[in-house]
């Protein structure tokens, strides 16, 4: 390691890809640290559709992606079974879907190595009674539901076991570069305290997803991203037991994914949006519901809990292909791409990894780590597909009934629930706080599902805020953790962000009740910024 360097590699971005890179680097014996500007998996990885792709969706439009997906699908089932609910998936042909696509589909899947099986319609409707009776053909594929927060958490924990470190709420604000233009250090700022820190390093991997263009720019390199906004709707309950895909070229509301207690309908695809400004519009909601009707008639009348959007980390294919000399295929894939900014822009020591899927995060990490390790003279093999991730708590694979069964096993009725909708016990929340004492309520939500059910936090937010306050009183809360009043207000604002676009019907009634509790009973509008009198004064 050159003098002054603190680590071999700094990884930028704490989504699935960044976590995967950190793990791979660490397992190859390189010292590495990761910085993420928000919470881990709070970017696209925490705002995606929830599907462990079989690849069948891309067999025609993007065969490379399809192949990557099916291969990684098998790998993840092996190394991270606790983050996967093996729901299986169906591709179903509605009357609006083209006949020729239906005819070509099985062969295209076979070519990509994806196993399909035709499903008799009576069997389909028995398994999925809410599906439209107009569906005229169905194939079974190895899709599944993939839990992103547990996956990222497990990947980071594995990286830590191999000696790496990861820091959240630490944003990259600039780079120090050597005379030859190569990066020498990464400048970061703590987004909560404002404290700045420079990390000297030999190499940098930008795994900043849709934000990778911004990172490249900070380093004086060039990378044009064209982030694709995708909006999704979360329904109050599952409408299907398996993932349901339309048997047609990829379109808007054509996939329904059962995820924990809910199901998610998505997605739209709108290019050129600022990744930080992913607002769900009325038009998108109407389009999603109209398409959803073709799969589940009546779905547009069902209860929607919230709408949210993510930003696809898509790159400008023309720009990248120009520099992609090592790309074997002439066909430009929407699959991932490794960019060596030293070779391309004269910014040595910086690599970007863009594109891809959450499903292929490990493969993406492997490819960029191969490039970085080679440049640093490390020839250790990649072992990330062989070694399983540390197990998350609970069942493996994950199972919908898990929490209910656990509470029953503990004696049922006496469970001390903080979040009643998602069955988050006081103990579960306390454990999460013990692990990460600097968490905001929204951070706790990601790993516990606090506030993710029908009431969207109306009842659990005050309870959880009270827990934070009690911990602060007995000195068990991290100084960077938000004050309970602030935590309560910001969590309420965050929950409202997702319910506002779908404020009709049941969820509107719920919102009024929530407003009554917060503004009326609790008077949250009048809460002081700080709960503690002494602190407020100082």
């Amino acid at each position: 390691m050159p003098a002054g360097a603190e680590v071999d590699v700094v990884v930028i971005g704490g989504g699935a890809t960044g976590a995967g890179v950190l793990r791979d680097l660490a397992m190859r014996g390189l010292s590495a640290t990761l910085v993420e500007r928000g919470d881990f998996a709070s970017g696209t990885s925490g705002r995606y559709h929830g599907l462990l792709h079989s690849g069948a969706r891309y067999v025609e439009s993007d065969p490379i992606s399809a192949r990557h997906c099916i291969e990684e699908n098998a790998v993840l089932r092996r190394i991270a079974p606790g983050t996967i609910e093996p729901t299986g998936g169906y591709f179903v042909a509605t009357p609006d879907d083209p006949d020729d696509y239906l005819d070509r589909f099985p062969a295209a899947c076979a070519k990509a190595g994806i196993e399909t099986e035709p499903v008799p319609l009576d069997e389909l409707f028995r398994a999925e009674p809410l599906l439209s009776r107009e569906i005229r053909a169905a194939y079974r594929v190895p899709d599944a539901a993939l839990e992103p927060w547990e996956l990222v958490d497990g990947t980071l924990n594995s990286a830590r076991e191999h000696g790496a470190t990861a820091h959240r709420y630490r944003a990259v604000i600039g780079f120090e570069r050597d005379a030859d233009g190569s990066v020498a250090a990464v400048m970061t700022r703590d987004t909560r305290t404002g404290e700045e820190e420079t990390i000297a390093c030999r190499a940098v991997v930008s795994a900043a997803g849709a934000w990778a263009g911004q990172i490249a720019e900070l380093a004086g390199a060039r990378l044009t991203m064209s982030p694709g906004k995708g909006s999704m709707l979360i329904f109050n309950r599952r409408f299907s037991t398996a993932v349901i895909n339309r048997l047609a070229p990829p379109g808007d509301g054509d996939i329904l994914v059962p995820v924990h207690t809910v199901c998610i309908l998505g997605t739209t695809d709108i290019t050129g949006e600022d990744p930080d400004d992913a607002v769900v519009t009325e038009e998108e909601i109407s389009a999603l519901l109209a398409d959803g009707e073709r799969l589940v008639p009546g779905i547009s009348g069902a209860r929607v809990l919230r709408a949210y959007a993510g930003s696809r980390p898509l790159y400008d294919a023309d720009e990248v292909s120009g520099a992609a000399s090592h790309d074997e295929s002439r066909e430009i894939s929407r699959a991932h791409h490794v960019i060596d900014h030293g070779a391309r822009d004269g910014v040595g020591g910086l690599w970007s990894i863009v594109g891809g899927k959450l499903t292929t995060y490990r493969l993406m990490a492997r490819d960029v780590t191969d490039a970085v390790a080679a440049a640093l003279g490390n020839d250790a093999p990649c072992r990330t597909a062989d070694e399983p991730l540390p197990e998350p708590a609970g069942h493996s694979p994950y199972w919908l009934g898990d929490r209910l069964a656990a509470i029953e096993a503990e004696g049922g009725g006496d469970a001390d629930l903080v979040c009643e909708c998602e069955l988050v016990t006081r103990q579960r929340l306390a454990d999460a706080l013990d692990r990460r004492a600097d968490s905001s309520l929204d951070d706790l939500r990601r790993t516990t599902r606090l506030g993710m059910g029908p009431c969207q936090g109306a009842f659990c937010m005050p309870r959880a805020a009270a827990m934070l306050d009690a911990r602060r009183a007995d000195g068990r809360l991290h100084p960077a953790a938000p004050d309970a009043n602030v935590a309560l207000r910001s969590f309420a604002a965050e929950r409202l962000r997702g319910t506002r676009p779908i404020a009709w019907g049941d969820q509107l009634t719920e919102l009024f009740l929530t407003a009554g509790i917060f503004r009326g009973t609790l008077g949250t509008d009048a809460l002081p910024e700080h709960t503690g009198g002494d602190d407020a004064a100082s």
Partner: protein
Amino acid sequence: MTFHDAAARDFPAFSTDACIKCNVCNTVCPVSRVTDEFPGPKYVGPQAQRFRGPGEGSDAPDHSVDLCSGCGICTRACPAGVLIAETNNRARAGIVEERGSSLRNRLISDTDLLIRLGTPVAPLANIGLKNRLARWFGEKTLGVHRRGPLAPFSRRTFRAWWKREKRPTALEAGSDPSRTVVYFHGCAVNGFEPDLGRDAVEILERNGLTVIVPPQECCGLPFISNGLYPRAREKARRNLESLAQYARAGYRIVGTSTSCTHALKAEYREMLDLADDDATAVADATWDICELLVDLHDRGELDTGFAPIAESIPYHPPCQLKSHGIGLPAMDLFALVPGLRAVDSDHDCCGAAGTYGLKAERWQIAQDVGAPLFAKVRAAKAAGASRAACDSETCRWQIEQSSGVPTVHPVSILAESYRRADEAASEPRRRLV
């Protein structure tokens, strides 16, 4: 029709979507009020429902839902229209489907079978029911609580009497739908309380109605309550087969058990998913007897020649009656009897909830639920009441057993008043015996 109605119809268990978590159901639940074992209707209903589904192990991983007595008070109280008790019952049926049911539950649900076995040996069986040792044995081996309210078998069933009397079991030529009713007697009248059936027929005939009793079986409610849906559907289908023709032709079906009539009106469709035209026709044609008598009175067709009964009687409107959404017709009828003062028990549930209060492991809960009611009934007796009144059989048996005060159906009091009037008129009508 609101969306919720549509959702409830199309996706029956999906009415839980309307839950806003407000807790009103928890504040009215009589079971969670007396035991910590039951986490309450919100928890086992709309909350747990989101965690039930196909998956590893069991579709319904919880068992606390089995503590729901099914009284239905939560459903009535829910401001959002969630079918809470119905959701719970379906969940229980899911558990039974997966894990099977106890012999006890299968046995106490099968009232038709019990009556077939018990009636021929009624004197002996009734000794058994009263015998402490036998009941102790029944608790140990079967799990039927030794003090659970069980009514004695009648020596002869209502149906046997009807047959012996050669009374009509089908329409006669020239029947008029406005002057003829179909009597759904239910198992209680058939096997345990045939006198109530005779009282009912007496009153209906006195008011100019011809009563026919076509073939029928247990309504299936005990099977429904115990989650034994396939058995309940068998019963329901046979009843619908027999009754639908009358319903379609405009005849009313009248019952003396608010539980059976509610099964015909609601449960067949809401729980058993029997939503065809037959089920709808029967549901629309079904009346509770007091509801029907009040209707006659509203039209000026009820014989109001009631003789005075100078007594203050505690009246308990059962949960099932309240689920009908027809008010308290018995109170309206009591008001027609000179001197009679009926006092609404103003208590939600007696605890029996069909077979719930019989079960060894539920008996104490059922007693605790009904305790304030029993105290009120006892106090009324101390103040001079000779009996209490209640429209549902298992509730009557529970109140009688736990308070020690004889408890009768409202129409039995009306029948008595009519008879006294006849006696006073010195030309007594023939009493049906």
